[in-house]
């Protein structure tokens, strides 16, 4: 791994990222009761994405990696693509009355989803 930084400079970089990650972890822990209480899920995932970006870029040395970076982006795109498809599907869920993945099945026979 080619680098022009000295040992001390690289070590300082590791500690800076650590402090950033600790601060974000603290925000993760206090957010649900301190601010944006109605948007907890979105805020938590946003903090997660920022932390993930810091880990990938600095701890996993992704900065400046073109081929590997493109591969990671492609894999993330695949996951995101299927995520979007699934979310569109689940937001237009049509089979709640007869489905075994929803809480109550009230169709003929009167079986419960929890029977399965």
């Amino acid at each position, binding site marked *: *791994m080619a680098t022009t930084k000295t040992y001390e400079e690289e070590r300082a970089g*590791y500690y800076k990222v650590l402090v950033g990650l600790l601060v974000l972890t603290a925000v993760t822990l206090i957010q*649900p009761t301190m601010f944006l209480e109605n948007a907890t899920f979105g805020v938590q995932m946003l903090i*997660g994405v920022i*932390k993930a970006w810091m880990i990938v870029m600095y701890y996993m040395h992704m900065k400046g990696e073109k081929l590997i970076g493109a591969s*990671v982006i492609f*894999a993330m795109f695949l996951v995101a693509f299927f995520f979007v498809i699934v979310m569109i599907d689940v937001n237009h869920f049509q089979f709640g009355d007869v489905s075994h*993945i929803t809480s109550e099945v009230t169709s003929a026979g009167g079986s419960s989803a929890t029977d399965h």
Partner: protein
Amino acid sequence: MSDHPYVPEIAVDREGNEYEVQGWQGDFFGGKFGFWLFMLTEIMMFGAMFMVLTYYFTLHHDDFINASASLNRTLGGFNTVVLLISALTMGLGLLKMRHGDVKGAKLMIWATILLAIVFLGVKAVEWTAEYNHGVFLGLPALQGGLPESKPFGEIMFFGMYFTMTGLHGVHIIIGIGLMLWLLKRINAEKVTPEHYILHFNLALYWDLVHLIWVFVFPYYYMIGAGLSTGGH
């Protein structure tokens, strides 16, 4: 390094010309790229699990919030910090190795192993408490159709929780084993400041384990944090 003399492998083309087959053991980028491809399969596997989780979270929003509220955020938060510091020790170990401080690198790997064991110990305490509260795979509360069954969405939540944190725990155990192997390779001088791709890739693996937890923790422990003061 090796006790055996180097014997080149020869490939012959159709015209009978001989070529020496190049060894790729010293190909740092190739080793790194290959390991990244493996890690991408891990990302897609856990990505699929998160997709399932999101699917059921959308269908059973309130049940998921209630179930999340009952998890122990103190222990989960403690483990988050433990894993975060272990990622630092692993990174510093690699840094020391690259700069020739082999002894310091080994010390950092041992520190990472210790923190990994602490993580597993806390997880064991947490799971034991959940078992004692009747919330565990196979117990009546998480089986359908019984008087003591939890609501369907909560059954799904806890099923995914034990599956994903369990799989994450398996990755931690594998990581400990790999780090012990790395120490053995360092002691045998197979991993050195000049040839450290194994150490580099294991540091990547440990960062991936950390990365997965970065999303597992808020998704399971924090989404219901506004509701509750307790935990198992």
